[in-house]
């Protein structure tokens, strides 16, 4: 199939259909709504399940039910809607059934706005719902990557009986970009053995997240942690740009990483040996790769569209070997390549140690930038 000009959200939805999604349950929210609208048109045409739920609470519990029935199912939403889903997400994790959730992140907290943001990093990467569980988080930086990662998300969810988030932002959801959709996958003929499908000729299947006896719950927790260690071993993904000879590393994911690429190209022309490390799996986080980078560069600049969330994971991996600096825009503001280029220049010239509070230093600079009307 050739590349065509595709609109983000619609392309993501079509990618899910082609990956064999048999049930979509969602609730409208900008900047993710076109995903649901595409599903509303296409799923009934294909004889697959689509429900516009009464809320995100209901939507995620429909996903939970349909996942228990052994089908490839998903939802798509944006930050406030994802917050509302957290109880159900925790139940899905505790029941160990697969589910794919697309979060097209927007500015917050609260109602915030509908502009692109990466402010849900903690919520996505650290769990968000209650209890001990570990979601897999994939962070695409283009429409094509989002398409590819949605198929991957279903495969990972089923392989590990795990929640998989694909986190995009309003930029990716709304942009038109040349990309290629995968061919239509065949649907599985048989449900998985654990699914509730009616106890015909077998013992009943019971799917629940309740383990009333703490030692039983702990056995489940151990199973989940071991599964996560397995995921950490097998599923780390990242992308590198001009890192081979880099003296400085920019680390950014999704749109922030993409904008940084342009800045890095410009910095290279000025003779600054800088490269980009872009984590694709935010969870599991590429800790060892970041640690390795910190052994060969002089300084690291983390760039995000939030208040410095991945910054903490980077700092934990770097373990003080080199200074880690931060630049971020928040509230739905996307940084320009020029801003990041300025930061790269500054970081490359900076000989001072960072006083363990990159965030405090950055916020002072950001206030200056905002005051200058940038």
């Amino acid at each position: 199939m050739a590349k065509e000009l595709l609109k983000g959200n619609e392309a993501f939805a079509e990618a899910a259909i082609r990956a064999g999604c048999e049930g979509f349950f969602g609730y409208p929210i900008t900047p993710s709504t076109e995903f649901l609208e595409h599903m509303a048109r296409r799923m009934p045409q294909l004889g697959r399940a689509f429900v516009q739920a009464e809320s995100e609470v209901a939507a995620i519990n429909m996903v939970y039910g349909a996942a228990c029935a052994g089908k490839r199912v998903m939802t798509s939403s944006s930050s406030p809607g994802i917050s509302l889903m957290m109880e159900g997400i925790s139940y899905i994790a505790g029941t160990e059934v697969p589910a794919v959730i697309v979060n097209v992140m927007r500015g917050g907290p609260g109602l915030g706005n509908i502009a692109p943001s990466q402010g849900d990093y903690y919520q996505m990467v650290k769990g968000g719902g209650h209890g001990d569980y570990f979601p897999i988080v994939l962070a695409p930086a283009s429409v094509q990557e989002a398409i590819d990662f949605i198929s991957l998300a279903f495969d990972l969810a089923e392989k590990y009986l795990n929640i998989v988030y694909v986190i995009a932002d309003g930029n990716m959801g709304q942009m038109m970009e040349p990309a290629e959709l995968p061919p239509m996958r065949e649907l599985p003929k048989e449900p998985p053995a654990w699914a509730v499908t009616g106890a015909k000729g077998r013992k009943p299947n019971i799917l629940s997240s309740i383990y009333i006896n703490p030692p039983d719950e702990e056995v489940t927790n151990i199973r989940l942690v071991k599964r996560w260690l397995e995921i950490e071993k097998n599923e780390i993904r990242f992308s590198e740009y001009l890192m081979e000879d880099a003296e400085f590393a920019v680390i950014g994911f999704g749109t922030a990483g993409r904008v940084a690429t342009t800045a890095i190209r410009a910095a290279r022309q000025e003779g600054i040996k800088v490269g980009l490390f872009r984590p694709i799996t935010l969870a599991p986080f590429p800790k060892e790769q970041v640690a390795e980078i910190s052994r060969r560069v002089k300084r690291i600049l983390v760039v995000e569209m939030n208040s410095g969330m991945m910054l903490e994971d980077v700092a934990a991996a770097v373990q003080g070997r080199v200074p880690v600096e931060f630049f971020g825009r928040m509230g739905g503001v996307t940084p320009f390549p020029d801003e990041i280029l300025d930061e790269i220049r500054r970081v490359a010239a900076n000989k001072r140690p960072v006083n363990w509070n990159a965030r405090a230093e950055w916020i002072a600079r950001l206030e200056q930038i905002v005051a200058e009307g940038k």
Partner: protein
Amino acid sequence: MMTTPVKPEIQVVYQRPDSFTDLTTHYCPGCTHGIAHRLVAEVIDEMGLREKSIGVAPVGCSVFAYKYFNMDFVEAAHGRAPAMATGIKRVLPKNTVFTYQGDGDLASIGMAEIIHAAARGENITVIFINNAIYGMTGGQMAPTTLPGMKTTSSPFGRDVELSGYPVRMCEILATMEGAGYIVRRSLHDAKHIRQAKKAIRLAFETQERGLGFAMVELLSSCPTNWEINPHEALDFIAERMVPVFPLGDYKVNEELKH
């Protein structure tokens, strides 16, 4: 010559339904949850639905319902059973899908889910246990608690000025076009239990015949949290609950009448 004694025709008239496991339930003595379970199991047996049934247990005293029914089961979050049942039924439309929910579960935290399941006409069956209290958490006020009724969170009796009036779910859901069968029955004596069973049967037939959303509300006892003995609890249903929650058919699809 020996004669074989003529054996009297022995017929089993009462046994554990196939749709039941042989576990002893955890319900308190005198609790009608057990009766409601049994009626559902008998109906599923009689209609031959066991092998295609998928139950959805709630959060409440019946959280472990899945242990007692011998069929596929899931256990929902508090109040979300109708949404979970929707998800299952939409991807497995040929299966029989039912929820079993308490009054806190269905009429308080899960109000949106039950109303919209009915509004969409989801082809599911709902068994609604109204015992006018939060049993599992130790006897707090429910949306169905009677005016003046003492609970641990209405210690001076439910004051309608402060906490409003009982919610009548059948009356609300009967206004939904998507509902095929909405009735209220009671479990306080043998006659009413027989009527309840007939209603449960019709509620499953509604689903099998694709006639939309079906709910049977069952007035039930909670002697433990009402702090009265099991016998008094049954009288409480008849004398105090029935006047607030009148028994009857609130909506019955024409096709079910013949």
